[in-house]
C-alpha cells in the first residue's frame, strides 16, 4: 500500500529523533555497543526513508545534502511552518 506523504514525513521525524537521542547518548557513552548498533541500524533506516521521500517529493535538505529528487524544487511551499 502506498504510504502517504504525511506518513512518510512522520516516519522520517521519528527515525531522525531516535538518531539524535542515540547520538547524544553515544557522546558520553562511546563504549556502549548496544547503542552503537542501534544507531547504525536506525541511521540506515533514516537514510532509506529520506531517499524514498525525496525521490517522490524532492529535497529535504539543500546545500548539497541528500537527494534533490526529480526537480530542483526546494524553494517551493509549503515550508515547514506553513
Amino acid at each position: 500500500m502506498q504510504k502517504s506523504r504525511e506518513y512518510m514525513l512522520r516516519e522520517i521525524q521519528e527515525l531522525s529523533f531516535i538518531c539524535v537521542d542515540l547520538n547524544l547518548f553515544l557522546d558520553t557513552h562511546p563504549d556502549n555497543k548496544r547503542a552503537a548498533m542501534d544507531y547504525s541500524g536506525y541511521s540506515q533506516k533514516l537514510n532509506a526513508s529520506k531517499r524514498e521521500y525525496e525521490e517522490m517529493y524532492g529535497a529535504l535538505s539543500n546545500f548539497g545534502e541528500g537527494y534533490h529528487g526529480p526537480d530542483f524544487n526546494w524553494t517551493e511551499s509549503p515550508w515547514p511552518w506553513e
Partner: protein
Amino acid sequence: MRMAKLFFAQYGGADSELSAGMRYLAQRYSMPLDTLKALLTDIGTEELGHWEMIGAMIAQLTAGATAQDYKAAGMGDYYVGHQNGIYPQDASGVPFTAAYIQVKGDPVADLTEDLAAEQKARATYESLMRITDDPDVIDPLRFLREREIVHFERFGEGLDILQRMHINCHTK
C-alpha cells in the same frame, strides 16, 4: 494567540532555546575533551532545531492575524513594532541579549551553567504547560520539556567525565 505571546519566552528569553543553542555552540571551542566538544556541538545544534520549532509554532498561531487580533491578545505593542514578524524577545518584550549566556572558558563553570540552563528551560516549559488552554500545543511542549531533562543528564555525565579526568591527571 494568547499562547503566542508566552512562547516568546522560549524564542528570545533568558532561558530560551536560542539562549541554550548559542551558549553551547559558543562554549564548545574552549572545551578540553573531545567528548565535551561533541556534546556541546550536538546539544547546541539540537537546541537551534528547537528554536526553529518554537518559531514555527508562533508563526502558526499568528498566521493571518490582524492588528485587532494582536490587540485582543494583549500584543498591541508588539504589533506596532513587528506586525506579523517574529522577533527574538521574551514574553515581556525584552530583546534577546548575549548577556543571558556566559562563556567562562573554564569547563567546570561552563558545564555547571549548562546544567542550570537545562533546569531553567524545563521549569519554563512546565509553566507553559500549566498555563496553556490549547491542547494542540501541549504535546510539543511536553516533548521539548523531556529533551531538557535528557540534556541535563548528558551534561551531568560530561561534568563527571571531566572531573574524573582531572582526578586521574592529578593522582599520577
